[in-house]
C-alpha cells in the first residue's frame, strides 16, 4: 500500500473556496467590529469556541487512538490528526479575544473588581495578564502534542516504525490535555459569569468537543470519499463504529449536563442556580429545551438503531445536526452572559448577523488550513503496521 494512492492531487479547489469564504467572513467580521464591537466579541467567542472544540476533539481522538492501541480507527486517523494540527492557527485567532477581553469578561474591569469581594478574591487567577499567559501556555502544549503526533504519523507513512513512540507520547500528553482543556473551559467559558462555578464544567466542555469532532470526522471523510480513494478503505463498518461512539457520547454529554443541572437544582443554592435561571428566562428557556431535545433526544432516538449507523445518508444528516447543536450549546453557554458586561442591553436572545460572519470567517480559515494539510500528505496513514486489520473491520 503506498501513500501515492491516497493523495489528494489537484484538489485545491475546496481550500481556495474555504480561504475565499474565510477572508470574506473575516472582512465582514471586521466591519462588524466597527459597527457593534460589543456584539462582535461575543459572536466571535462563540464561533472561536466552536472551531476550537473541533480541533481539541481531534487532539483527543488522536491521543485516545494511540493510547488504547485502537485498530478500527487507523484508516480514519489522519483526519483527526489534521484537525488537531490546526491548533496553532487557532492560537492566532485567539488574539481578538485577548484584545476584546474588556467586552467579554467582567473580571477584567478594574472598577468592578474593586467593588466586589468575590472578584477581588478571584483576581489572583482571573486577571488579564495571567489569563493571556495561561491561554498561550495551553496553545503551546496543544500545538506541541498535536504537531509531534502529526509529524510522527507522516514519518510512519515513510516507513518509520513509530507506533511505540506515538503511544508513549500520548500517555503523558493525555494528562496534560485533561488538565489544560479543563483550565481552558474554566477560563474562556466559565469565567464569563465570574461569580459562578461548577467542578464538572471542564468535563462538560470536553464532552461536547469530542462529540462534535466525531461528527466533523464523519462529514469530512464523506466528502473525501468523493474526492479520493478513501472510500476503498473506509467502509460502512467504520461509520458504524463512529456512529456507536456518537451515540455513546450523546449519552455521555447528557449524563454530564444532567449531573451538573440536577445537583445544582437539588441543592438550590442561589449562587449556583442563578446560572440556570439566566437560561430559563427572557426566551432562553426555549433554547434550553431545544438543547435538551436536539443534543440528546433526537440523536439518541436516531442513532440507537443499527440501520441508522450503517446508512451514509442518515449519518450525514445526523453529523450535520451535531454541528448545529454544538453551536447551539456554545451559544447557550456564552450568550446569556452578554448582559453581565452590558447591563443595559436587553436580556433576550441576541442573534445577530455577526454570528454568521464570525462563524464563516474562522471556519473558512480553519478549513483552509485543514484542507491544505490534507492535500499535502496521504489521507490514510498507509504506513501503520496494523492498517490491514483496520481496513477489514467488520462489526459482528
Amino acid at each position: 500500500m503506498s501513500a501515492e494512492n491516497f493523495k489528494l492531487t489537484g484538489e485545491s479547489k475546496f481550500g481556495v473556496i474555504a480561504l475565499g469564504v474565510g477572508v470574506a467572513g473575516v472582512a465582514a467580521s471586521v466591519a462588524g467590529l466597527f459597527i457593534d464591537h460589543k456584539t462582535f466579541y461575543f459572536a466571535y467567542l462563540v464561533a472561536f469556541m466552536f472551531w476550537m472544540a473541533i480541533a481539541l476533539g481531534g487532539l483527543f481522538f488522536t491521543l485516545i487512538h494511540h493510547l488504547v492501541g485502537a485498530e478500527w480507527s487507523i484508516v480514519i486517523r489522519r483526519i483527526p490528526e489534521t484537525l488537531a494540527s490546526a491548533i496553532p492557527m487557532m492560537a492566532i485567532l485567539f488574539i481578538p479575544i485577548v484584545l476584546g477581553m474588556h467586552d467579554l469578561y467582567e473580571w477584567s474591569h478594574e472598577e468592578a473588581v474593586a467593588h466586589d469581594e468575590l472578584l477581588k478574591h478571584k483576581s489572583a487567577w482571573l486577571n488579564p495578564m495571567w489569563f493571556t499567559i495561561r491561554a498561550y501556555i495551553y496553545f503551546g502544549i496543544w500545538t506541541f502534542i498535536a504537531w509531534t503526533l502529526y509529524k510522527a504519523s507522516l514519518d510512519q507513512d515513510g516507513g518509520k516504525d513509530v507506533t511505540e513512540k506515538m503511544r508513549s507520547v500520548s500517555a503523558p500528553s493525555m494528562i496534560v490535555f485533561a488538565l489544560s482543556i479543563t483550565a481552558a473551559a474554566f477560563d474562556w467559558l466559565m469565567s464569563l459569569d465570574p461569580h459562578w462555578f461548577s467542578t464538572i464544567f471542564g468535563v462538560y466542555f470536553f464532552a461536547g468537543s469530542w462529540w462534535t469532532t466525531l461528527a466533523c470526522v464523519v462529514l469530512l471523510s464523506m466528502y473525501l470519499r468523493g474526492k479520493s480513494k478513501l472510500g476503498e478503505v473506509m467502509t460502512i463498518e467504520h461509520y458504524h463504529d463512529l456512529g456507536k461512539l456518537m451515540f455513546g457520547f450523546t449519552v455521555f454529554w447528557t449524563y454530564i449536563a444532567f449531573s451538573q443541572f440536577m445537583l445544582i437544582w437539588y441543592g438550590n443554592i442561589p449562587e449556583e442556580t442563578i446560572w440556570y435561571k439566566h437560561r430559563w428566562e427572557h426566551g432562553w428557556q426555549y433554547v434550553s429545551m431545544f438543547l435538551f431535545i436536539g443534543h440528546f433526544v433526537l440523536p439518541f432516538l436516531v442513532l440507537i438503531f443499527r440501520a441508522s449507523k450503517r446508512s451514509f445518508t442518515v449519518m450525514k444528516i445526523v453529523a450535520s445536526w451535531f454541528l448545529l447543536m454544538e453551536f447551539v450549546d456554545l451559544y447557550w453557554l456564552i450568550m446569556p452572559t452578554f448582559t453581565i458586561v452590558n447591563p443595559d442591553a436587553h436580556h433576550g436572545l441576541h442573534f445577530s448577523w455577526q454570528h454568521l460572519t464570525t462563524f464563516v470567517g474562522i471556519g473558512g480559515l480553519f478549513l483552509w488550513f485543514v484542507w491544505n494539510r490534507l492535500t499535502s500528505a496521504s489521507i490514510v496513514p498507509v504506513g501503520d503496521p496494523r492498517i490491514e486489520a483496520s481496513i477489514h473491520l467488520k462489526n459482528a
Partner: protein
Amino acid sequence: MSMETATLKQEHRNGHHHVYVPEPELINDKPRFKTITDIISGVPEGKMPRLWWILFGISFALMAMYLAVITYLIWKGIGIWGNNTTVGWAWDITNFVWWVGIGHAGTLISAVLFLFRQKWRTSINRFSEAMTIFAVICAGMFPLIHMGRIWHAYWFLPLPNSMQMWVNFRSPLMWDVFAISTYLSVSIMFWYVGLIPDLATMRDRAKPGIRKTLLGLFSLGWRGGNRQWRHYERAYMILAGLSTPLVLSVHTIVSFDFATSVIPGWHTTIFPPYFVAGAIFSGFAMVMTLVIITYWMFPQIKQIINERHIDNMNKIIMVTGMMVGYAYGCEFFIAWYSGNPYEASIFIKRATGPYWWAYWSMITCNVIIPQIFWIKSMRTNLAVSFIVSIFVNIGMWFERFVITVTSLSQDYLPSSWKYFNPTIYDVACFVGSIGLFMTLFLLFLRYMPMVAMSEVKGVLPHANPHHPDHELNGHGNGHAHEQHRAEKVAELATKNGGR
C-alpha cells in the same frame, strides 16, 4: 486504481476477508480447546488445595463473627458504633460505598469492555462478575443493619397499600434502593447467562450423580447448537447494552446521596463521574487482589490469566486512579475559586485538620502509589501488583471515609463539631463483611468454573476462521474456502492413516 486496492474493494464487496492478522497471544502456550476445559473444570472437580482450606477457615470464622456482631447490634441498637450526634454517618456508609464501588468492575469488564471489543476481558470476566455480586451483597448489608430495626427493612419498598403511604421518592437514598437492586438482579442475570455453556460443559464431564443432575438442571438443556449460540450471543449483547448505563447509574446515585445535600465538601457537580471512576478504580484493584490470591491456590490459572491481563488491569487502575486525582484537584481548585468560605474551610481542614492522616493516606494510596505503573516491568510484576492493589483498596476506603466524616464532623455550626472515634463494633462489622465476601468468593472457586471457558476459547487464535489451524480443531464454520477446507480434510485423513 492500483491492483492492490482493486482487490481489496472486490473482496470487500463479496464480504470475504481472508486476511488473518495475528494478534499478541492472550493465552500462554497456545493451548487447545481441551486444555482450557481441563484447567478450568478441573478446579471444581478436584480437591481444594491446603491454602484454600486455610483461607476458607479464616473467612468463615470472620463471617461467623460478623453474624454474631450483627446479632448483637440488632439486639442492642446502633449506639454500639462510634457514630455520634454530629457524625451520623461514618463507617457504615463508608463500607457501603466501598463495597458498591468494588462491585463495579464486574459489569464494566463484562459489559463495557465487551462493547469495546476488548478480548482480554474473557479471562477475567466470570471472576469479576462473581465478585460484583458478592460485593453488592456486602454493600447491601450496611444500610440494612444501619436501620437498627432490620425487621422494618421492607419500608424501603414502595408498598402503598400495605403501608398506607409512599416512600420518599425525592430522597436519593430511595433511588439507591432501586438502583442497587436493579444492578444486583442484572448482574446475577448476566453472570448466569454467561455461565450456561460452561455449566453444560461441566455437566458433560461429570459422573452421574447429584452433581451432574444439578449441573444439568442449571445448564437449562444447553446443547451448544448453532441456534442456541445465536440466541445466546444476542442475549449477551443485549445484557451488555443494558448493563452499561447501570455501571454509570449506580455509583452516580450513590454520589447523589452526598451531592444533593448542601454540606460543604459534598455538594459539588463533579461527584457523579468522579464516583464512577473511583468505583472502577477500586473494583479493578479488588479483581487484581483476588486474581493474585487465586494464583497462590491454583497456579495452573496462570496459563489463562497471564501477564498481559495483569498489565492491562494495571493500566486501567492507573488511568482511573488519575481520573480520581483529577477530581480531587478540581474540587480543591473550585473550593478556592468559588470564594465560598465553608467550602474552602472544609478542604483545608481535610488536608491539615484533625483527619489529615486520612486525607493523605487517600492521596498517597490513590494518586501517588499507582504511578509506579508507568514502568512496564512493574505492571507485570505480581508482587508489585498485589501490593499496589491492596494500597488502592485501602486508599479508596479512606476516600469515602474522608468524604463522609470530615464534612460531617465540622460543618456550619462550630458548637456541634465532634471528632469521630470508631468502636470495636465498627471494626468488627467492616472486617466481618470482608469475611462474608471472601467466604462467598472461595465457595465460588470451589463450585463454579472460575473463567468463562467458552469465551476464552472464542478468542484463541485458532478459533479465528481465518487462522490456518482453524479447521484442525474441528470447528470449521463454513467461512473458510471450500477448497482450502477440502485440502485440510485430506491432510487430516492422511495423518489419521486414511480412515
